[in-house]
């Protein structure tokens, strides 16, 4: 004997498909209860109607609607009105699912990180042009130290003469017209504004990264951790990557050119941004990034699968290991 059920009803039939008993649920007019009911059935839970019928027919095989085992029978399918309600509930459930996607830190990180990358690229071009522009009018000026402060200084000065006084250099014979100077000032203002926006964006990335990937952030810093997470399309995927992939994540171009044409393989991808790698001598960067990537895979797995958070001591141990590698290899190997 078979017990058939769907979200609205349950029925018992014998092997030849004769319906023996039916129990129906009539509460489907209420959208919230219907949603809860659909959620229940989609998780393969047993509805109250099934329980009622099970108490009457203890030895039946329970199957959900649509199961190929079920014999053909005149199952009590929902009426047109019930299907209309079902459709409304289905749309509501989908809406809730889409709303839930907004809570997904992977997607949020992706947008803010990519946005801050785009803004940084814009900032670098705008700031570079500002330096060149001011340098054209003030050939004596040197900006090595106070490059970043130049935009503020331009904004503070009324004219080129003011600026030359601020920078403590001589005033050249030729200068921009008043309108031209105005444009230069506007350009400096946009550089300032972008810088402020960039900082607040990166703060958000740090915050999100540190809460989403606490152990990995402790090891690599929140921005690098977020970048790896975005590059791997989410924490769940990042946690499933082998260390070798983690090591070259972000160096896909070099890696595939290695596979295709046999150029030297990349030794580091985004992980190069970490000072342990980038501030080490060239000949040990590969060793350090390999070790660091291996540690990073463990850290992100702790984050994803609910392991223990990494402590300061654990990271200090890795820092010691980096020191040892540096001491062991003071000179490039001779080949």
């Amino acid at each position, binding site marked *: 004997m078979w017990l058939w059920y769907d979200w609205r009803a349950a029925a018992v039939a014998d092997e030849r498909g004769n319906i023996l008993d039916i129990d129906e649920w009539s509460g489907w007019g209420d959208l919230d209860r219907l949603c809860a009911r659909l959620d229940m059935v989609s998780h393969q839970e047993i509805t109250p109607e099934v329980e009622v019928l099970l108490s009457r027919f203890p030895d039946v095989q329970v199957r959900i609607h649509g199961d190929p085992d079920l014999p053909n029978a005149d199952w009590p399918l929902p009426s047109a009105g019930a299907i209309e309600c079902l459709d409304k509930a289905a749309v509501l459930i989908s*809406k809730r699912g889409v709303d839930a996607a907004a809570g997904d830190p992977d997607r949020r990180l992706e947008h803010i990180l990519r946005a801050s990358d785009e803004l940084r690229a814009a900032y670098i071009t705008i700031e570079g042009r500002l330096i060149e522009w001011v340098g054209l009018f003030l050939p004596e000026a040197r900006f090595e130290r106070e490059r970043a402060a130049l935009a503020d200084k331009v904004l503070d000065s009324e004219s080129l003469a003011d600026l030359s006084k601020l920078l403590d250099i001589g005033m050249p014979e030729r200068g921009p017209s008043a309108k031209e100077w105005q444009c230069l000032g506007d350009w400096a203002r946009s550089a300032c504004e972008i810088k402020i926006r960039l900082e607040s964006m990166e703060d958000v990335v740090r915050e999100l990264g540190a809460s989403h990937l606490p152990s990995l952030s402790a090891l690599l810093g929140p921005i690098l951790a977020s970048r790896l997470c975005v590059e791997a399309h989410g924490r769940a995927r990042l946690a499933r990557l082998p260390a070798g992939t983690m090591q070259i994540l972000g160096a896909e171009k070099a890696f595939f050119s290695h596979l295709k044409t046999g150029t030297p393989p990349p030794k580091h991808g985004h992980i190069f941004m970490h000072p342990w790698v980038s501030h080490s001598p060239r000949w040990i960067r590969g060793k350090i990034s390999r070790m660091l990537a291996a540690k990073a895979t463990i850290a992100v797995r702790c984050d994803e699968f609910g392991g223990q958070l990494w402590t300061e001591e654990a990271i200090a141990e890795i820092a010691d290991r980096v020191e040892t590698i540096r001491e062991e290899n003071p000179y490039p190997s001779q080949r």
Partner: protein
Amino acid sequence: MGKKRRLSGAVLIDGRSIWTRNACPKVSQYGESLRRFQGVEHRRWDPTRSKLGAALARARHTQYDLLPEEGSTCLYLGAGHGTSLSHIHDQVCGPDNQMAGRIIAVDLSPRCLRDLIHMAKIRPGLVPILGDARNFSAWGVMVSTKVDWLFQDVSQAGQVGIFIDAVNRFLKPGGKGLLSLKAASERWTGQGERAVFESVAEQLLEAGFTIEEQINLHGLEDNHSLFFIYN
């Protein structure tokens, strides 16, 4: 100007282009052009953007059978942004769902669902569902009755297996099933895409379906073929 002919109440072929009667007047769903034929607004069905549109343009002898009947119940797996879906809606439901059709559209991506939910607001009869097309148990409960027409376009490995299971689970006996197959998603055997298509046809026959036509979409949608079967 080519010769005009109607495939159904809502679908019109004018020379080489396909048009469907717009169920939602003045709205262009994905930037397609709108035009009036005998005072009724139609939307152009772009065959390079919709695999179903491409199949309709390429079909040799099943052009009149490919689309679902007006007012039928349809299941669309892998709805994406709803390009094909909007034209199916024109055909099955019509303005304000006059024809009492029902289209259940399943897609995995919340981004796509966002567009579909928006579309469902202005096109009654459309039921978007967020779910994995492979995992029937999670959303199968929302498909209460068997459907008349099933379309699958999921572009992932094992498409045929999913299709056969879906047809057995959801399609009425005698219903129409359409499988849009992307050869590049299947395991590459090194014998070219023709071999992939042949093995798929074999699997479909083995599952007990009758293949009405295999439509090669080459030129409109490369590496794709559409299988039209009856359950």
